[in-house]
């Protein structure tokens, strides 16, 4: 396997061909904020938080779905990127109904963490206050679409790891939402195995276990990665 050498924020790094910039950055110890990326499932480049600049191109590239190439000079923390990232997070907050104080994931929320990391203290965009639904028809879990950022982690976890493909994205544009089955209540979807992987995958408090209240949501994110390594490398110890 051939190796590519590149520079990320002036740190030299060598990584095998086919790796993504995000993997290379992790290797180099450079942290790039992400929301839709989840170890163990495919990347889709949905959240646009991992955008990086590459010398020689005036485009921005999503690090999670861009493969490394020989001699790349990558910048992850330019003022332009910081500004865009902050704007992206502001748009996410303005898009849904994210009220931290009453959220199950308060204090344990990736959206919240990213907002803090990019220095967002308020949104410059008007809040949409969309009319979104809550589906509590499942005996164990609930989904509150108000807190959803459409990262599609639940969709990919359910499809790729559990293999049930309960979730998908319905509608388009501003009307998009996570749909279960044939637009059925979650509880009546036969494909659902009640495994709870979507709860662990959800970066916010959109999907949660019933009975958890404000700031009580806990996740076992490593479980997802463990399952993938167990399956692929046959390692059943964490």
């Amino acid at each position, binding site marked *: 396997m051939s190796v590519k050498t590149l520079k990320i924020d002036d740190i030299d790094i060598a990584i095998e061909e086919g790796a993504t910039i995000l993997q290379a950055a992790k290797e180099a110890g450079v942290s790039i904020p992400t929301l839709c990326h989840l170890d163990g499932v495919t990347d889709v480049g949905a959240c646009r938080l991992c955008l990086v600049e590459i010398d020689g191109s005036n485009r921005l590239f999503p690090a999670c779905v861009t493969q490394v190439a020989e001699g790349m000079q990558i910048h992850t923390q330019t003022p332009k990127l910081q500004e865009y990232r902050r704007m992206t997070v502001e748009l996410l907050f303005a898009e849904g109904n994210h009220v931290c104080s009453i959220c199950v994931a308060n204090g344990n929320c990736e959206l919240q963490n990213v907002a803090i990391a990019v220095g967002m203290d308020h949104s410059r965009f008007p809040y949409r206050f969309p009319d979104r639904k809550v589906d509590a028809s499942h005996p164990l879990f609930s989904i509150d679409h108000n807190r959803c950022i459409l990262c599609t982690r639940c969709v990919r976890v359910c499809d790729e790891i559990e293999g049930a493909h309960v979730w998908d994205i319905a*509608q388009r544009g501003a009307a998009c939402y996570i*749909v279960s089955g*044939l637009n059925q209540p979650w509880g009546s979807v036969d494909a659902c195995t009640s495994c709870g992987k979507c709860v662990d995958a959800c970066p916010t408090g959109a999907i949660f276990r019933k009975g958890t209240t404000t700031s009580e949501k806990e996740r076992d994110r490593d479980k997802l990665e463990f399952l993938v390594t167990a399956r692929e490398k046959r390692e059943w110890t964490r």
Partner: protein
Amino acid sequence: MPSSPVQAQSSDAASPPAPAAKPPAKNHASGDRRFKALDMTMKRHQYKPDALIEVLHKAQESFGYLEEDVLIYIARGLKLPLSRVYGVATFYHLFSLKPSGAHSCVVCLGTACYVKGSGKLMEALEAELGIKVGETTEDGKVSLMAARCLGACGIAPAMVVDGSVSGKQSPESALDKVRSLQQG
């Protein structure tokens, strides 16, 4: 037969049952010719999952809209998850999940027509019918739709009622047309 329980399980997984108690889609009770047309389209595409859009087109064409059991039938035929089929069917405006009305009324909202007041036309029609664009009246008589451009900019503002184009419409003349539809 050691393999039989496994087989039973996998066939279960491949055919997600209908949400409501409906006859199994494979031998649809109606024995409908339209389902045969769907079968032919799916067969022509070798039941490949990536033929979903073509098959949905065929279904929309022969059924007029995509009913729940049609979507389930297609999902089963192409071996696709229900949520995926629903997602694709709702993404494209060409597909409709509700039956359209007996009469159709399309208002052109292209630039030329809009400048000539088709926005007002649409407002008047929405108010008269009590529905929003893209919807059908409750009695199932009239569907109100919008078009981007009909290519009839010379007769702006244009509307199409049941397939026939009429130009230079005013809110009054448009309302007259729609009222006669509702009576007919």
